[in-house]
């Protein structure tokens, strides 16, 4: 009973703040609304019996990625840039196609909904996830670490601060 109330409350929060990301002009407000939306999604993960992933969602997404977004927005001082108005034709087409797509998706998901869950609790703590990761998914794990290294090198190179002496225009 109370889990239904929690579900509806946090689902409403997630949807409302996600809509604010799309609709509000100011990117700082958009970034902070996205943080609130991610928090609501973390609560959804707890309702889905995956508390480990809920903590990871807050640590990685809301706590690191969005901080990076906020840094970029604030350092480039983007909220004073006037975003040009989207042409009405593009707005209309964008809203209608995405609404049609969304409605079709929701219709089919609601039609083929499954309500029967297996018995027993869902063992999803850190130990189980860790064992599965280091047994079955060890190769993707190592690949992801190399990918993160590539991303770090790429980000350093693109921002122009590799420590090699460069001319002034790329500072």
């Amino acid at each position, binding site marked *: 009973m109370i889990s239904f109330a929690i579900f509806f409350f946090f689902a409403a929060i997630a949807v409302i703040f996600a809509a604010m990301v799309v609709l509000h002009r100011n990117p700082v407000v958009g970034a902070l609304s996205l*943080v609130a939306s991610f928090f609501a999604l973390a609560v959804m993960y707890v309702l889905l019996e995956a508390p480990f992933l809920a903590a990871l969602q807050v*640590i990685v997404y809301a706590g690191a990625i969005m901080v990076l977004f906020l840094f970029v927005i604030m350092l480039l001082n983007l909220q004073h840039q006037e975003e040009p108005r989207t042409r009405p034709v593009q707005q209309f087409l964008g809203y209608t196609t995405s609404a049609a797509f969304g409605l079709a998706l929701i219709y089919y998901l609601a039609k083929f909904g499954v309500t029967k869950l297996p018995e027993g609790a869902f063992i999803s703590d*850190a130990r189980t996830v860790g064992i599965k990761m280091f047994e079955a998914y060890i190769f993707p794990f190592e690949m992801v670490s190399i990918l993160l290294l590539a991303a770090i090198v790429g980000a350093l190179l693109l921002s122009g601060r590799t420590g090699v002496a460069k001319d002034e225009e790329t500072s």
Partner: protein
Amino acid sequence: MHGIDWVDVGLSGLKIAVVLGAMLNVTPIMVWVERRGSALIQDRPGPNRVGPFGLFQSFADALKFILKEDMLPAKANKVLYTIAPMFGLIPALTTIAVVPWGRPFLLPGGRLFEPIIANVNIGILLIFALASMGVYGIVMAGWASANKYSLFGGIRASAQMISYELSLTLAAVSALMVAGSLSLPDVVWRQTGSFVLFNVVKLPAWNIFSPAMWIAFVVFFVSAFAETNRLPFDFAEAEAELVAGYHTEYSSMKFALFFMSEYMAMATMSALITTLFLGGWDIPWYNEPPNALGFALSVLAFTVKVSALLFIFVWVRWTIPRLKYDLLMKLGWKVFLPLAVINIVIVALFIAKRWI
């Protein structure tokens, strides 16, 4: 849903009241300790007018904060300016919910009373998750103040906090590896008991006495200073450099909230250090019985350890000078992060060879 267990609800409410009361009282006590302690170190009297030994200085400060004019800078973003202090306070107050502060004991009715508000099995991840929320308070405070220097202070402080969060997390992993669990009561239970060194001396089985954890302890301790923005890492405030950093434009209750959240974060970090490395509520060389006496003694032991660490926070503030910002960032990324990772390897070696 059948009948609610009202005794359980009542006990939880009692636990929340006790912990909340303790956390809210940390600030006035620490204000006094800080001012008298720093005066002691700097060879001057300190506040001694308001009450005996200046003990009522905190009341005078609180009254000043309440009565000051609450202002809003003209160009500031009103909503963000107002909610930024809350983002600083929420992690400070909620992360203490997963720290065990006493020995679980049996109540007369046979029920086990666990002195921890939320015994979730992902305990310490909750602390890290909520601590990363604290960065938003600083960033928003610096940006919403519409003041260049506040923005600089805010960005520098938040960059420092997210850099040292990494070494904090990895250094804590070594204590978690030994305990084999993410929940803090398990970490403390692992540190009860004792082990015999060289067949001669019997040491309590605290994590700090095992050589595998020494590097982790140092890294965690220093990163705790960086996380709570205390000297030698206090670029957020940086008196004499940035006026008051990200909370320059704040006055009265909003400033008091930042002030409080800093001391509460210090208390939470000290509680975390004692839980992970100093044995939590464990009394050395004594087997606490599972009754009210054992519980009271364990709470006393926990309080003594946390208080000692809080005094060390004050002591270090007036002993070590502030680092230059780029040196600080280099230290965080190039020294502490590799050390924390090396420590994980060392602890893994110790566990594999069953030396720990």
